[in-house]
């Protein structure tokens, strides 16, 4: 098995792991894409996730869960092998309200990986990443198992 094949298998494993996360399934999250150090998830519009029934706008919490999950997947996608990770912190800036009736997509990047800590940024948007609904930065603790993370 060459490196490319190993990488493809690893990313497929990340996809299937994230797709099986119970809360992701409960939210109806679709795993759109997982590439090296990057993940794209899509949250279809669902009335049960609404924060304000007057406007039909999704609750910020659903966007938080989407960004947290996508960011975690980006960290997994940056690891050489799948080891446990834990969110240390996550900051979310809500830039504008989501629009009722529209799916929200999140794209996350693990932009820095160290032995112990992974750093992520992510953006949530409807159709155009240049018109974001929310932006987040996060840090994740990576398993201390030796050799688990890229140096």
């Amino acid at each position, binding site marked *: 098995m060459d490196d490319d094949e190993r990488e493809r298998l690893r990313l497929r494993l990340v996809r299937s792991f994230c797709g*099986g*996360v*119970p*809360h*992701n*399934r*409960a939210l109806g999250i679709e795993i759109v894409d997982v590439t090296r150090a990057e993940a794209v998830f899509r949250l279809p519009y669902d*009335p*049960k*996730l*609404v*924060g*304000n*029934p*007057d406007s039909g706008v*999704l*609750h*910020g*919490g*659903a966007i*938080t*869960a*989407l*960004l*947290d*999950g996508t960011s*975690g997947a980006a960290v997994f996608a940056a690891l050489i092998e799948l080891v*446990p990770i*834990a*969110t*240390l*912190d*996550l*900051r*979310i*800036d*809500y830039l504008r*309200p989501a629009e009722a009736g529209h799916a929200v997509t999140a794209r996350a990047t693990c932009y820095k990986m160290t032995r112990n800590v992974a750093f992520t940024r992510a953006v949530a948007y409807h159709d155009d990443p240049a018109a974001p609904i929310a932006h987040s930065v996060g840090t994740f603790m990576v398993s201390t198992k030796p050799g688990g993370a890229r140096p």
Partner: protein
Amino acid sequence: MTLIARLEEARRAGDHQAFVDAVPYARFLGLTAAEVGGELVTTMRYADHLVGNPALPALHGGTLGALLESAAIFELLWRAETIVLPKTITLTVDYLRSGAPVDTHARGVVTRHGRRVTNVRMEAWQADRAAPIAMAHAIFLVMRG
């Protein structure tokens, strides 16, 4: 009836659950609210659909973020009697311990109630109040319109 009118009615009646149930997403998370020892405590009842890591198992970090944000909003609407729906500007969560598959409680404390923005600190805990599993702070826009 508008959401804010439903919230005001529930507050007048002292009906915490009607207040929480007015928000569909709060029902999805299984939130309840109650005044405990002079504090408004929001509880997320454990359910399997809240799990993020089935191997441990541990709650999904997003559910804790959502619980903390909700606790802050309920504190603003119920106790600080904000008459507009607060809009979250920014939310920062520190995850301190993994969330066990049990009920999780949260409360928010208003640190500054301004004319345009309000700052709130939040904490979430499970069995041991003295060992919070997450801490957070958030800034809300509380202007009309």
